[in-house]
Structures are given as C-alpha cells and as structure tokens.
C-alpha cells in the first residue's frame, strides 16, 4: 500500500512540474493568456488622475459605470497566411470605442498602432487573476485604472432580423 502511494506520488510530482505555467518565451506576451481567459472582459472599476510632479498630489477618483476592456485573438489574413494576433478593444458606456493590437507582459501592456514607436503604454502595478492595476503617464499627468474581471455584456450588433 505504502509502495503504491509512493509510486503515485513520485510520478505525480514530476507530472506537476511539467504543468503549463504563466510563462513566456522571447517575443511572447505572457500576460495575454490571463487577460483573455473566460470572457476576456475587464471592467474599469476605478480611475485615478493626478499630477506626478508633486510629491503628495491631489488624486481625482472616478468610477465609470460601464467601461470595460475586451481581450481576444483576432485572425487576420497577411500575405495569404492566416495569422492569429492578440487584440484588445475598449468599450465606453457599454459601446464600442476602439480596438488595437496589444502586447501584454507582466510589467507592461501596450496598445500598439501600425507605426513603430507609437501606442499607449500602461505600466502594470498589480497583476492578479481577477484584478489588475495599470498606470499611464502623459506628460505631468498620471492615470491609474483598476480593472476587475467581469462577464461584461457586449453591445448587440446593429440591424434587423426579418423573416
């Protein structure tokens, strides 16, 4: 009995070591897997804005009602080859606002455009399974957003169904 138990445990131990982890290879963006899990939607719970030039700045805090991000894989045809790209979109008041390619690492999330050196870069301050805190700097103005994982409702496509 003991031997059997040891047998199972010893093999299980090495099997566990091989479990897939939230890890990245070069050129991979390891945070995306976490961001797109489940529905891939993250509600903006809180927005804080302040002047980063002051040591003890006044922080303006707001709580948007229905703003959220959505992270998903978008398949594009590039030179006759289907390529899976990591995308993020943003919804304001429940309505689609914008989408772009995203590079998401444990330290940084970048919404990139088609041009090198351009895009919005957010610094990851907290990286949890159901909660993220990101900050963004634009000159002397810093913004911090708190995101909570959600099953946010996407807007219905326009148009009518007719018989």
């Amino acid at each position: 009995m003991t031997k059997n138990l040891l047998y199972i445990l010893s093999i299980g131990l090495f099997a566990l070591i091989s479990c897939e982890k939230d890890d990245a290879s070069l050129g991979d963006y390891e945070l995306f897997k976490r961001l797109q899990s489940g529905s891939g939607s993250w509600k903006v719970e809180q927005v804080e804005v302040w002047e980063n030039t002051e040591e003890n700045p006044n922080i303006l805090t707001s709580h948007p009602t229905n703003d959220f991000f959505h992270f998903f894989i978008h398949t594009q045809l590039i030179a006759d080859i289907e390529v899976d790209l990591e995308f993020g979109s943003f919804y304001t008041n429940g309505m689609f606002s914008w989408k772009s390619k995203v590079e998401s690492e444990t330290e940084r999330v970048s919404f990139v455009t088609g041009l090198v050196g351009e895009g919005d870069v957010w610094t990851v301050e907290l990286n949890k399974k159901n909660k993220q805190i990101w900050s963004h700097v634009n000159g002397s103005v810093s913004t911090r957003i708190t995101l909570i994982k959600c099953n946010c409702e996407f807007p219905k496509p326009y148009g009518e169904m007719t018989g």
Partner: protein
Amino acid sequence: MKSLVLSITIGAVLMSSYINAQLDLIFTPGYGVAFTKSNIHAIQDSYSSYILLTENDAPEGITVNADPNFDRKHISDFLSFQLALSGNWVYFGISYMPNKFVQERSVMYSNGYGRTFRWEDKRNEVLFDFGFGSKYIDVFGTFGVNFNKYRMTSYKVYPDGSKSLSNDFYFNGVFKTEDTGLAYGFGIKIKPINFLAIDVRYLYAHHKIFGEYRTSDITEGNLVLTDFSFARSPVMSEFPQDFNAPYSYKNSIAPMFNKHYLTISLIFHYRTND
C-alpha cells in the same frame, strides 16, 4: 509535453527498480538555502555607466543619489524537487531546481525624478545525479542543463514616487533574453533518520551548452537583452552595456552569466533497506 512523458518514463523505470530491490526512495520537494555567485559584470558595468551619465547630465544644483551596484552574491531560500534511488552501493536520481533572483536599484535626482532598474534572473536547473549510495550517506556527481530567462526592466520614477514604462523615454523598457547552458557539480546526502535527509551540493552553471562554443563565430552574434515592443522608439532596442557609448547591438549585453551555487536543503526520504 515531452518533458512530462520523459519524467513519467524515468519515474516508472526508477519505481520498477525500487519495487524489485531494497533501495531507499527519495521523492520530495526539498526546501533550503542557496548561496550563489553570478557573473553579471556586464550588468554592473551598465549600471555604473548610467550613474555616470546622470551625474554628467544633472542640472545645476541637482544632486544624484544612486544605490550601490547590483550584487553578484546572493543568499536565498529555494525549492527543489528530487526523485532518486539509493542503496546497494549505487545512487541515481534526477533533480529539478527552479530559482529566481530579483534585484532593484535606483538612481535618483534630488528633485524626485530618477530611474529604477529591476534585474530578474530566473533559472531552471535539470540535473542527473550518479554516485555511491548507502544507508546513511550518498555521495554523487551531478550533471545537467540549465534553462534561463533574464529580464531587465527600466522604469522612469516621478516625484510622487510612481514608476512608469511609458514610451516617452527610450530608456524605459522591458529587455529580455534567454539562455541554455551546461551545469555540473557534486553533492552529498546525509540520511541520519528515516524520512529526513540533508542534501548539500555545489553546482556550476555554465552559460554555454555542447556545440555552442563556436556558434557565435558562425552567427557573429548572441541573443542579447532586447525590448521587442512595437510601441517603443527603435533608438535603443538593446539594453546598453555602456550608456555613454552609441546605442547599438555591439553595445549590448549577451547573457554570459555563469553561476556558482552552494545549496543546503532538507528533503524527505523513505528508507526500505533497514
């Protein structure tokens, strides 16, 4: 998946031997302390050059306050995993030692602006141990491979204390590289009582692997610390070894970080050859 199949196969072979022989079985997460010394001269040179740059660029009346350089030596707790058989004069085992060392250093101006560098050295040592095994003591040589990931994150610091990786500054970034190398050493396992053993081992983790010795002659290059982000300015894609020299591939940091380990850990073992 390949490693899973390999692990299960090796585990099964070891266990079938164990069932048919009176050998000690060691299967355990081990916990202990590691004394390490890493050859990160290039990282240290880079940090020194950044301090020099900030001192030269400091506005009048502003002073520079810098942390001491990155440490080469570390003492840290660590986990290991072992599956081994011992007895009948033979010791054989496989060990897995994941470990991660993180260091942060800041160079600050007296006006509150500055920069923080976060150096992450994440290693996975996969080792095969062979040697002499007995009831109370095992002596073995160890040989294997290390799979390593390195990350240098460079943040701009603001007077309010916040840190940013925004693309406003081309020194900001997450510079990454990977490396694989051979590891070898020796160790001793003392088993005074059933269920508990002390594992002491020395390991030298080299940055190169078989066949790699002439690779750089052929490719004329290494995988250097690089930030691949599309959102960054291409002015400085590689983390510079010298901030005061032109930023280019030649002025970059290749992961030639050999490492010495001295580890002492407590492990579980089950004695069957009483």
